Structure formats: C-alpha cells, structure tokens
C-alpha cells in the first residue's frame, strides 16, 4: 500500500485490472535511500500512483480508480494546452520587457490541472506563485495573474471571488494560512476542503512543518499538494530531504502519497480522494506530485548552469500533455479537427494575453497609500497628503510654464 486511510476508495476500483496494477504498486521502497539520479529510480517509480503511462497507456491503481467521460478527458487536455500556451506567452512577454519576471509552470500542467479539477467551487486554494494552471481551473482570468509580474500590483484578484488566495512569494507561508482557514471551515461546520500548494524547496521551511503539526493536531480539512519539480532554483531535492517527501506525512500522523505529477488522471484521482478524506472529517493528507520543471525557476535564472541536458530530455519523454494526447488519439476521443480547434483557441488566448498586458496602465501614484490599513492610519494620511501636494506642485509648474 502506498497510502493509509483510503480503504473506502477500494470499492470503486476496477477489479478486472487489479492484478497487474497491484503488482506494480505494492513493493515497498527503502526509506533511507537518497535520490540523486535524474528522475526516480525503479523502486521509487513503483511508489508512484499512475493511471496513464508516458506512452499514453491507461493503467489502473487499486486505490485510485477514476472513470471520466470523453468530454471530461478532452476538457483536461484543453486545460493543459491552454495553460501551457498562456505560460509560453507570459515567458515571451517577459523576454520582450513587458513583465519584470515570470515563474513558468512548463512541465507541471498535469499536477496543476489534475489537482485543480478535483476541487469543488466551495473549496479554497492557497497557492504559491507558480499555480497558473490551478488559477485557470478556479476561473481566475489568467491576465489577472500578470499584474504582479508586470509590477502594477501585488495580486490583481479578489481571493474570495474564486476561492483562490493571492500568490504568496515567501516560501511556505501560505501552508499555515491554508491550515488556519481549514480550521475555520471546520468550526463553521462546512464540508468544504482547503488545498495548499508548495514545492519541494518549501518542504524545508519551518512553516510547512508547523502547518503539518497544526493540521494534524486539529484534524483540519486541508490537503497539502507538494509539486516536487526536482529543483529549488539550482538545488536538487536531495538538498531538502533524505526521505521521499510524501513519507514525511507519516511522522506527523497523516497519510502521504506520491503521485505521477505528469499524469493528469492520477493527479485528479488522488486529489479527489484526499479532498474527500478532508471533507469527511478524516483530516489532512500530503500529496507529493512527482514532476519536473522543464524551464527555469523564474526568467531570471539559467538552468543550463546547474542542470544536465540529458535529465531534461529524459523528462521531456514524460510530457504530461503529449501522453494524454496519445491516449485520446488511440481511444478515438479526439480527431484532427478537435486538436486544430484547441490550437486556434490557444492562439486567441495568446493574443488576448499580449493585448491585455500591454494595455495595463501603471497604477496611480497615490496607490502607494491605498489599502495599507483597513481602518486608516494617521501617518499614512499625512504622507499621502504631503505626496499629493508635492505631485500637484509639478502640475502647477507645468501649467505656469504653458501659460508663459
């Protein structure tokens, strides 16, 4: 078993395919082995929950069955393609000087779309700063994500409109906010769940450990979704941990599971199960989505300085979009016309993103003083008035110059 506490899920599994799947998933890994190669070694590969192989072959897992309609499967494909296109546009816009920085999600589409599509509207998301695909699933207009990277605000959306909190840049801080929010959900007697996203680097932060402690102690309905993309800027996961990350959960008293983070079906199935546990009062769960960041950490770093090409190439073969496409094509669920239509839709999205970003106005100068306090603050009022008068003095001078 790769996860405790999922016995109730077994009733849904596909018995006819169990034998082969079980064989591939019951082998225990040695917990003390450090990982240092490109991608998981064989034993760790066996720990992965996988429902779709890199070749696009559908497989079953004894604990995580999922049965999607053709439309749902096509929807996941569309989500991933459009998210990748949005991300590519943002990267290009950064290169063109329209954005100050961009944190690309390239390669992590399945982890984000799979987990994002597992959520209910009344669930609440606490992202880090790379969850563009999750934002997409929440219905946040993707152009809203760009304001902070362009430098016109620190987050351009109302978190409560889509139950999607602002991006959090301090690593791991948001896992505690998610835990506190989940404690509130529990106090309210609501049956929704909360999900906190973070990366393998963040797993070293004290706040993440503290959020594990608090959520376990209070049995809070929160799912911790760690996207282990193998690199924390230039540092490998082995600089963060000596045990596979999902195994940390056990020490805090809740289950952890490692899922193939490039397999959108597995990410969806595992996240659904974890959310269901949370909703039914069974407490937190840690999901480690084993994936890969294909690009740079952000547009300001250069992965060629620290990352071997062969590693990147090895992961390219596991591309999350390609494998779903192979499956959809082999199953006759998509045809060329459908794929072309998605391409066309992504072109439209790309153009819209470019147009909106370029049209984003710089904020008003006095925005510096807005919303510093909810109830106001005498010093802010004083400084705003002084700065406004100072600004106005230029207008007066300009007017006088024109008058002359």
């Amino acid at each position, binding site marked *: 078993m790769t996860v405790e506490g999922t016995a109730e899920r077994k009733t849904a599994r596909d018995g006819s395919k169990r034998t082969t799947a079980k064989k591939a998933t019951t082998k225990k890994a040695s917990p003390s082995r450090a990982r240092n190669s490109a991608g998981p070694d064989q034993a760790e590969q066996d720990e992965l929950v996988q429902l779709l192989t890199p070749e696009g072959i559908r497989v079953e897992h004894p604990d995580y069955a999922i049965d999607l309609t053709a439309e749902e499967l096509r929807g996941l494909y569309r989500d991933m393609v459009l998210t990748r296109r949005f991300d590519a546009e943002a990267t290009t816009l950064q290169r063109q000087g329209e954005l100050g920085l961009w944190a690309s999600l390239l390669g992590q589409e399945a982890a984000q779309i799979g987990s994002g599509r597992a959520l209910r509207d009344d669930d609440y998301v606490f992202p880090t700063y790379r969850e563009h695909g999750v934002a997409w699933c929440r219905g946040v207009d993707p152009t809203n994500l760009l304001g902070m990277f362009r430098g016109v605000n620190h987050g*351009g959306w*109302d978190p409560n409109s889509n139950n999607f909190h602002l991006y959090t840049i301090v690593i791991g801080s948001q896992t505690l906010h998610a835990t506190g*929010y989940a404690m509130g959900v529990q106090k309210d007697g609501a049956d929704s769940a909360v999900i906190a996203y973070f990366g393998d680097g963040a797993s070293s932060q004290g706040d993440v450990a503290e959020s594990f402690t608090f959520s376990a*102690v209070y049995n809070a309905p929160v799912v911790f979704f760690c996207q282990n993309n193998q690199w924390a800027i230039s540092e490998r996961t082995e600089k963060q941990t000596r045990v596979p990350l999902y195994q940390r959960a056990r020490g805090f008293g809740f289950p952890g599971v490692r899922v193939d983070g490039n397999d959108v079906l597995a990410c969806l199935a595992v996240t659904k199960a974890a959310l269901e546990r949370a909703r039914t009062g069974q407490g937190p769960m840690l999901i480690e989505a084993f994936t890969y960041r294909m690009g740079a950490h952000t547009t300001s770093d250069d992965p060629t300085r620290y990352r071997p090409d062969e590693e990147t190439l090895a992961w390219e073969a596991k591309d999350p979009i390609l494998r779903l496409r192979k499956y959809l094509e082999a199953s006759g669920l998509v045809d060329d016309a459908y794929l072309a239509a998605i391409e066309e839709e992504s072109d439209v999205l790309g153009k819209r993103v470019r147009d909106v970003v370029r049209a984003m106005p710089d904020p008003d100068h006095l925005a510096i003083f807005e*919303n510093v306090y909810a109830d106001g*603050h005498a010093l802010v009022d004083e400084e705003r008035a002084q700065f406004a008068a100072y600004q106005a003095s230029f207008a007066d001078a300009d007017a006088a110059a024109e008058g002359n």
Partner: protein
Amino acid sequence: MAVHEKITIAKAINASLRASMEADPKVLVMGEDVGKLGGVFRVTDGLQKDFGDERVIDTPLAESGIVGTAIGLALRGYRPVVEIQFDGFVFPAYDQIVTQLAKMHARALGKVKVPVVIRIPYAGGIGAVEHHSESPEALFAHVAGLKIVSPSNSSDAYWMLQQAIAGDDPVIYFEPKRRYHDKSRLDTESIPDPLHKARITRPGSDLTLAAYGPMVKVCEDVAKVAAEEGKSVEVVDLRSISPIDFDTVQSSVEKTGRLVVVHEAPVFFGSGAEIAARITERCFYHLEAPVLRVGGFHAPYPPSRLEDEYLPGLDRVLDAVDRALAY
C-alpha cells in the same frame, strides 16, 4: 463589572477578552497554555471554561504556526486574539507578522481583511531570565500595515483591547507585564478615547514627558518628585505607538517648550528617535531645549540583577528633566 472599580491590569484584560467574546462569536483566543492554565500570567484565566476549547484554543508550541493559522482563520471571517507567551518569543512569528499579516490587506487591494490581534506581555522589571523582558515595539512600528498599542492602566487595558479586536487591522497589543498586578480604576461605562489618541495624564507647564506602557507610571512619579522641587512637568501617555498622536504631543510641547521621551527599549533607532525628529520638525521655534531621550542601552537585555540599571528609573529620568531645563 462595577463601574469605577479598582482592578489589576491582568484582570482588566481578562474582562476585555470576555466582553469581546460575548459580543462577537467570531472572536477566538489562541496561544500556548491559554486554556486550562489560563496563560502563564493567568490573563486568560477561566475563559476556556466559559467559552469552550473551540474558542479558547491551546496551540502547539510554534509561534509562526500560531500567527500563520490565525491569519487563515481571519481570512475565513474569524477574529483571532493571539497570545505570544513572552516578548522574546515573538521572533519565530516575526516573518508571518511582517511579510504576511501586515501586507495582506494591501496586497489584496483591500479585498480581504485580517483582523488579528497579537497580545504580547512585554518589557522588563520582573526579574526574568533572558528573552523574557524585551521591548521590540520599534521593530513592529517600522512595518506599515501593523498598528501598535500599549496600555498603562486598567481602563485603557480594558477598552483598548476591545477596540483593537473590533477594528479590521492587525494590532500588536503590548501588555506591560511589570504592571499586570497594579490596580487602577476601571470605568466600563464612560465612552473611551479613540484607540490611537494620546492622553495628558498629568498637566504641567515647564516640560513634557512622553511615555507609554510601563514607563507612564515612572514618568508620573518623576513629575511628583519634580513638583516638590518646584518644576511643573506634564506627562503624556501616548497609548499608541503606531500611529502616534503627534498632535497631542505637539500642543503639549508648544506649551512647555521642552520634551523628554522615555521608553524601556534601547534608545538607538527607538520610538524616541521618531518622536524627537517629528516634534523637532513641528515645534522647532517652540523648543527651548533639544528633545532628549531616556531608554535602554545598545546592549542585550541584561541579567535580571542589572535590569534596574538598564531600565529608565526615577533618577535617570529626573536627570534628563534637569538637563532639558538647564538649557
């Protein structure tokens, strides 16, 4: 609660928490040992018994976790009142307070509010071991998005905490722990002053002493001794450190012409520096002497047998008063 009763500050804070929790079911009390024990200073005594462990929450021993989860609860619509056990233990939570709590309202363009109140028993004078007697108010006052207050008597302790809890901004509420057991009048019926309004607690005409929290009593004692020597000293209790009610200080200094600022925190980069600079700017032509400051030294808080030397006492403040009057 009778009107005009003499009561300790600790009991006034307890009564304030009780009143806030009765008035608003969203108010929660959180912290280490706040439940059955009633807190290490017994300030939350009896609250868990009356409000239950869902509203008076004993937390794991993790300050960042306490503040971070309080932020999440506030985002969900609760009003957590967090207790940090001692001043020197707030630093594990400093990141959450500074990078998250203080900025979240601005970051969300005003769309979310995080009304978290952080109670910190602070400052020295109780003979404690290290990390139990610090005065970190300047470190918080420097951060936009936070409000900082410190009461000096029971009525203020009672009202200012309720005002802090009812407001929509994060507030650091510094409790002068050496005054916890001082009794003073608690007036639960008169309309309280606004949270950030300074108050003249003793009128005078020769010099203004500005202080807050534990140093207000020292300054009042100084004013009494000075009066015996024929000097008329006015005492301003700032009550709020962010924002500071400079108007009240200014009008006092325009009358007296002299200002001495007193706090326990180290003088260097302390709140006294801010007050001296602003008042000098506002009252330059009224000042008869430079603004002087009395406070702690630029040294780690000393072992308790030296804290009487470190903390501003009657003699050091009187010395500053004499120096200011000598100009």
